């Protein structure tokens, strides 16, 4: 089976057809041609006439071209730039200029900018389909041979060409290097413990070949924290022992008090946390400030590869200024009009304050959909140390009873102003994989049925206070542990403990601290933990269903089974519950499935089984994330999805197309 993700990931085209489309593209090289017509089916033909005039680039760059400090636009753009079809996304062509101000709570949040910028080899669009972005095309054969073709003429932010050499450097000089390889080996590229073979086909084409299908490869390239399989080789060679002058390298290593060159190399090449102003990038904006600072300034990348439907180079906005403030004052500062685009550190309970501040500060407060499986979910720990409780929680009747006992409507009204949807912990209706049955599974409020199920599960005896007794005669006192990070979560847990008390369980709440909370759950000391539900509640069939199976030691319902899988049987415990083993078997099947139809089928089975087994107990989902946007800022959609995965926070909405209406 041959698949090409050149035009539209959903479409299945033959390799030959895709190849011929792109030969046509790269041949008409004198003017910036476009691949736009292949990117979206109904895109109008972009209007580009003759040699680009200065109006197709930002005035600040046009000035630098006139000054002779920057080559003309035609030499800076790839021969086939990525054309963004603005009308198709409901956007309008913008004006150049302006500074976008944002607030962040922590110097580490500098890593949010590459997430918002969302320049990926291949990335999701707003319909959550995979579309080539930095890459011109990615051809997939049998789900295991990936041929990545780059855009000829594409350049790094310092003007150096972006070519197959940058991929070769990552593969040969980092992954396969005996020193750097200790850190650089990406687990997304391991299939059955083996790395792919790598070939450079020509200056602009590379190929990765696995022995078996690797369906996680493309989603990993498109992830908010992506798998990065290229590095700016021309820049990094000066820090690599194989290429650099040994004496100079040692001098730098010593000057920075590092223990060897690999630490220096690692520090200089960090793309996800772009603190190094000298590091070339392919993002729309590049960092210009060296830490420590309270204010990071990102300037536009003159070599950025995307243009709008009129052939004008993106981004529209010249500069991003990211100020670090205490996260506690960020809602207040946002309310005072000190940010132009803010969702991070804004919580739903800030909404009324922000709405009232709108009139004074020229902002709009939008409510986007928070894309999580459940705002607060409860995870019965199937690996609990207490043998009696472990058996009780492994009884599906108990988990179903715990879910049925919860009055989700009350939670919705009390904690979410009635704006959320009562639901099991599952995907949202906006996902193509959604089915009403998943949401409804054991999520109605039915205390009577819950009582019957608990009775049947061997918890029918009660003490004088009406508290149920465990099979060994202890009172059924259950502790829900949480990391205690939001008052909203605490409110929900208070309600849940009331609901569970009504079916004869005594509930204690215990809030600890993030690290401690994780540690106790992983060690099996926790009976029930509280956290948010599915991380990616907007999956498509091509995205990994690993959250639904015991695959990670961080999963709160089966940490030890997850660790067993993750460590390849070196730690944790093997799965000894057939229902959980089934999820893992299905996940393995998904990994080797050869088509999206097949993958969708497996997703359906996993979701159906997961919700029916109530491996996690959902409360409400479809909650809202306030997004504060300056009234001057355009092309920010009124309705959107706000999630880390798969939308990369603002990433899929392409902040490079946002612009200020009053820009000069």
């Amino acid at each position, binding site marked *: 089976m041959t698949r090409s993700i050149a035009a539209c990931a959903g479409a299945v085209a033959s390799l030959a057809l895709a190849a011929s489309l792109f030969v046509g593209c790269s041949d008409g090289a004198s003017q910036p041609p476009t691949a736009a017509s292949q990117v979206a089916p109904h895109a109008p033909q972009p209007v580009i006439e003759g040699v680009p005039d200065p109006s197709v680039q930002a005035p600040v760059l046009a000035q630098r071209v006139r000054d002779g400090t920057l080559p003309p636009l035609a030499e800076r753009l790839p021969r086939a730039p990525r054309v963004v079809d603005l009308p198709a996304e409901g956007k309008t062509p913008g004006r150049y200029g302006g500074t976008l*101000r944002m607030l962040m709570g922590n*110097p*580490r949040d500098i890593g949010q900018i590459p997430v918002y910028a969302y320049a990926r080899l291949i990335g999701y669009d707003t319909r959550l389909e995979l579309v080539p972005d930095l890459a011109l095309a990615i051809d997939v054969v049998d789900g295991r041979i990936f041929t990545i073709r780059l855009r000829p003429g594409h350049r790094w932010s310092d003007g150096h060409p972006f070519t197959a050499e940058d991929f070769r450097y990552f593969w040969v000089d980092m992954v396969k290097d005996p020193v750097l390889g*200790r*850190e650089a*080996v990406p*687990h997304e590229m391991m299939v059955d413990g083996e790395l792919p073979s790598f070939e450079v086909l020509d200056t602009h084409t590379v190929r990765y070949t696995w022995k078996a299908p690797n369906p996680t490869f493309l989603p990993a390239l498109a992830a*908010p*924290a992506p798998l990065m399989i290229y590095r700016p080789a021309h820049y990094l060679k000066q820090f690599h022992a194989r290429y650099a002058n040994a004496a100079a390298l040692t001098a730098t290593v010593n000057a920075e*008090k590092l223990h060897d060159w690999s*630490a220096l190399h690692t*520090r200089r090449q960090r793309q996800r*946390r772009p*603190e190094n102003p000298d590091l070339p990038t392919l993002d729309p904006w590049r960092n210009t*400030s060296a*830490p*420590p*600072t*309270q*204010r990071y*300034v990102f300037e536009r990348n003159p070599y950025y590869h995307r243009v709008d439907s009129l052939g004008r180079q993106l981004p529209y906005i010249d500069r991003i*200024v990211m*100020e670090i*403030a*205490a996260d*506690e*004052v960020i809602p*207040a*500062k946002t309310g*005072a009009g*000190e940010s132009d685009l803010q969702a991070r550190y804004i919580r739903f309970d800030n909404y009324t304050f922000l709405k009232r501040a709108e009139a004074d500060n020229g902002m709009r407060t939008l409510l986007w959909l928070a894309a999580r499986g459940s705002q607060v979910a409860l995870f019965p720990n199937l690996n609990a140390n207490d043998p009696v409780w472990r058996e009780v929680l492994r009884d599906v009747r108990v988990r179903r009873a715990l879910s049925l006992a919860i009055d989700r409507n009350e939670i919705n009204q009390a904690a979410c102003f009635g704006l959320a949807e009562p639901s099991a912990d599952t995907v949202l209706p906006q996902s193509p994989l959604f089915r009403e049955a998943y949401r409804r599974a054991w999520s109605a409020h039915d205390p009577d049925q819950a009582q019957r199920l608990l009775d049947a599960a061997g918890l029918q005896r009660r003490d004088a206070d009406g508290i149920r007794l465990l099979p060994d005669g202890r009172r059924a006192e259950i502790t829900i542990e949480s*990391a205690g*990070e939001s008052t909203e979560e605490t409110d929900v847990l208070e309600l849940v403990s009331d609901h569970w008390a009504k079916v004869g369980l005594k509930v204690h709440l215990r809030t600890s601290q*993030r*690290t*401690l*909370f*994780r*540690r106790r759950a992983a060690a099996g000391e926790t009976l029930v933990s509280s956290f948010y539900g599915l*991380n990616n509640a907007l999956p498509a069939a091509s995205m990994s269903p690993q959250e639904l199976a015991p695959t*990670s*030691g*961080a999963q709160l319902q089966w940490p030890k089974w997850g660790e067993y899988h*993750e*460590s390849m049987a070196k730690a944790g415990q093997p799965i000894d519950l057939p229902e959980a083993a089934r999820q893992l078997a299905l996940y393995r099947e998904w990994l080797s499935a050869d088509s999206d139809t097949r993958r969708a089928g497996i997703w359906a089975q996993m979701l159906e089984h997961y919700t029916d087994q109530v491996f996690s107990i959902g409360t409400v989902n479809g909650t809202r994330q306030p997004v504060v946007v300056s009234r001057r800022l355009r092309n920010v959609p009124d309705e959107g999805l706000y*999630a*880390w*995965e798969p939308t990369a926070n603002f990433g899929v909405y392409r902040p490079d197309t946002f612009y200020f209406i009053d820009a000069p």
Partner: protein
Amino acid sequence: MGGGLAAYVVQRVLYMIPTLLLISVLVFTLIELPPGDYFETYVAEMLASGEKVDPRKIEFLRKEYGFDLAPPERYFKWLGGMLVGDFGYSFEHELPVSAVIGDRLWFTIAVTFATIVFTWLVAFPIGIYSATHQYSWGDHGLSLVGLLGLATPNFLFALVLMYLANRWFGISIGGLYDPRFADAPMSWQKFVSILEHIWIPVIVIGTAGTAGMMRRLRANLLDELRKPYVVTARAKGMPETRALLKYPLRMSLNFFIADIGAILPNVISGAEIVAIVMSLQTTGPVLIAALASQDMYLAGSFLMLLAVLTVIGVLISDLALAVLDPRIRLAGGVSR
């Protein structure tokens, strides 16, 4: 007396060495005590925001930063580094500790000195007034104001003042200067911006300290005012102001000098909670964040710095007391 004092100073300085060593062991142990380490905190934080972390990468980082060594080994590495001025590496900031503290030190010193001056300017006149006019309406009224300052939670007061300053004067919320000056070198505009912002933390932190100082000055002064030498001075016709300022006030200032020991560490740590609420660019928030995320070298070196300053501060105030107040004798080399 001079020789005695010199010997005393040498002895005190020598005593500081074992004291500081003991403190360093204590600091290191305390920081090691909570379960987990920075990397675990980091993983938990990543998970909370939805990111996945490869456990193998974390294992690698742990080795890279020497966390696979036994605690005593790490302790001696840390101690050895500090002796040559290397305070270690901050994982959170990915920078050497000295670079993280850097500029913040100066802002902390500025805020603290402004606060001290503010406290003195308010507390002194009120303290003297309320001592000389004991139980008058003025005494009660001013004490009430001072106590209100002490009783109002600082963070609340800070929030209210910030909000009002923003509504009335359009001053940006939080911070010690307008964000646009963040990377600018010091200039007249930046200085003005700092002045616009600094008064809020100064008032908030200052009011809390004012009440204590006011009451102590009042109490000490009242003690002195009733002593026979004051009565004698008055009887001999010394003017009221001079009879007050020349001896009783000076006598009642001992506590002031003793306080210097406490001021020095405060200068560096600042008022942490207020600084966090107001998002000040001082060192306090860094220390708290470092403790919370178990960024151990940053937190440890910071606490050591505080310990050194406390020890030096106590030494200075002891010496100053010995010099200034002849009634304090150096009994057998043991102070006071």
